[in-house]
């Protein structure tokens, strides 16, 4: 058992789990035909069947049930404010399964030349009274019962009175912002706390204007919208839900990482020897002093940023995203690709940090401008 716990503590480290999940998610939701074929060969789509769902959720429940026998795991998971996030994890996975199961069923129907099951349903109309009104009535009664039982069983937490001189360790933002707080590990506050949330909101709003695919409206389908679903679900599961999970359950004192079965030791030390790109460039590769001039000093970083946002988009338009460029036109394509590159900058920065201890690509602390 201890060996298993150690293994889990090891595997859940972001630098192990995040790449694993990224590869797994892209294979589970393949954006193009090649990956789709690999998915088929590995029979990963079997997860979206009744049997797959039963096995998956049994494993998930078993993991939590086993975890609750461990004092460290139990302490964090049963904190009153963390209970909803456990619920969120189950709900998100459950509804992901519900939607993908129906999507694959519809895809199979449409492969046989039949229409989606929703298309059949839509031909017939029913009266809102009583059909819909009763469903709403029952679901709001169930929701009320759930809330009341939950409220009776679990007291709303109230900690010590506010004291501006004693800061708790760790200090955590409300749980739905913990994904942003987790990004603070890799980016400065002006990016993680201001620019990224703005880009996330604008990016979400832009979805209907960037998805030029006319198919797949009003029914679950994966095959007809591979690219869209792959991008959205990857960002949603990994950059939203996963980062919140890490921030909630796996970040302890000093925002250090703690495995789910690990004791939150305030004195845990993590050696940080992070280096800026400019220092890498001048001191390690060219064995000389970092220049005094800011522009000269940050030249490698500027070069990298300009090529990332300036040269990569047209290159992608000619190769990987040729069809998207054709469908969207120059302006929409630019918006799409810049949003995608900003999203991709998070895992890139993560990998640079884990592999090379890179702190900043561009570091101009004089103007608080660090990327």
């Amino acid at each position, binding site marked *: 058992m201890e060996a298993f716990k150690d293994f889990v503590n090891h595997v859940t480290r972001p630098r192990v789990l995040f790449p694993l999940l990224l590869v797994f998610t892209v294979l589970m939701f393949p954006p193009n035909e090649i990956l789709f074929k690999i998915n088929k060969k590995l029979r990963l789509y079997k997860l979206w069947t009744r049997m797959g769902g039963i096995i998956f959720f049994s494993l998930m429940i078993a993991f939590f049930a086993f975890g609750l026998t461990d004092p460290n795991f139990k302490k964090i998971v049963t904190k009153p*404010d963390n209970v*909803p996030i456990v619920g*969120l994890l189950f*709900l998100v996975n459950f*509804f992901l399964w519900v939607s993908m199961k129906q999507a694959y069923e519809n895809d199979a129907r449409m492969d046989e030349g039949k229409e989606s099951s*929703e298309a059949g*349903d839509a*031909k*017939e*109309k*029913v009266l809102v*009274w*009583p059909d819909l*009104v009763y*469903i*709403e009535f029952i679901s*709001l009664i169930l929701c*009320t019962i759930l*809330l*009341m039982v*939950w*409220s*009776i069983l*679990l*007291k*709303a937490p109230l*900690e*010590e*009175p*506010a*004291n501006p001189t004693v*800061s*708790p360790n760790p*200090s*955590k*933002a*409300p749980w*739905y*912002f913990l994904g*942003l707080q987790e990004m603070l590990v890799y980016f*400065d*506050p*002006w990016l993680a706390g*201001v*620019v990224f949330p703005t880009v996330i909101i604008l990016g*979400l*709003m832009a*979805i209907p204007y960037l*998805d030029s695919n*006319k198919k*797949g*409206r*009003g*029914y*679950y*389908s994966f095959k007809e919208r591979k690219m869209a*679903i792959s991008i959205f679900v990857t960002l949603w599961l990994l950059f939203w839900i996963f980062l919140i999970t890490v921030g909630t359950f796996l970040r302890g004192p000093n925002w250090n990482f703690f495995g789910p079965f690990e004791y939150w030791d305030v004195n845990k030390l993590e050696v940080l020897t992070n280096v800026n790109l400019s220092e890498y460039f001048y001191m390690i590769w060219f064995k000389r002093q970092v220049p005094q001039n800011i522009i000269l000093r940050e030249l490698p970083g500027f070069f990298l940023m300009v090529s990332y946002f300036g040269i990569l988009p047209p290159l992608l338009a000619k190769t990987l995203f040729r069809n998207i460029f054709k469908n969207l036109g120059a302006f929409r394509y630019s918006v799409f690709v810049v949003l995608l590159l900003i999203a991709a900058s998070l895992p890139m920065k993560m990998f640079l940090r884990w592999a090379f201890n890179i702190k900043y690509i561009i570091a101009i602390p004089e*103007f*608080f*401008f660090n990327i």
Partner: protein
Amino acid sequence: MANSGDKKNILGRIAETQVVKSIFRTGVPRSRRQRMMIILNDVFLHLHPARLPVSGVKLKYTWCMGGLSFFIFLVLTVTGILLMFYYRPTVEYAYGDMIDLREQVPLGIMREIHRWGAHLMVISVWLHMFRVFMTGAYKPPREFNWVVGVILLVLTMLLSFTGYLLPWDQLAIWAITVGSNMAGATPFAGALGPGSSLLALGDVNFITPSSDARFALLGGRFVGEGALLRFYVLHCIGLPFIIMIFMSVHFWRVRKDGGISTPL
């Protein structure tokens, strides 16, 4: 229903009285016509269309998450109003009022319902967004309503965020401190943000810790009296007012854009 005219039970008779008839103009909805009229005549029910496609009443298609988000919003409004009777948003009283709510108010689970309901609403709004994405319901002609939905999502999280401070315990002020410190790093508008030092006239900086985005959010240089009042007003009046407007638009547009999404 043919011989219901002869043998009427008590409920049936009450339904025929002048008082009830004056309230529900349609009468007991027995016929198809009456069932449609009851939706059309009622100010609340007529958020709905009178008829809808079968897929619209299938839980495995709709998940009911949008409706539940709205319902939880109503629950939060009611419990919130009740809590306002007991709660004073000042540094002296706020925490003590929380203790009183827990220990003095009989059957006091209003705070629990409010807090857990708030968590639940954030989750149900996210799942609603996820359902709308997975069914491609944001596609034309519903693009703009998706945008309104994103605004509602942001407002939901802001409502929850402003409410987080009100208990005035350690969890509250430090969570808000962490959250609002980000505002201090806003480019140009935050004292610790990139470019803010460029907004200066000679030696005089325009953006200082006493005049930046964080200060505007907190009404002070740290989370104190000013922040508590600001967050209270935003939580109880400001944001609910804005979210109601966007919710009205959202529901209106659901109907105007063709009701619940269906295949073309």
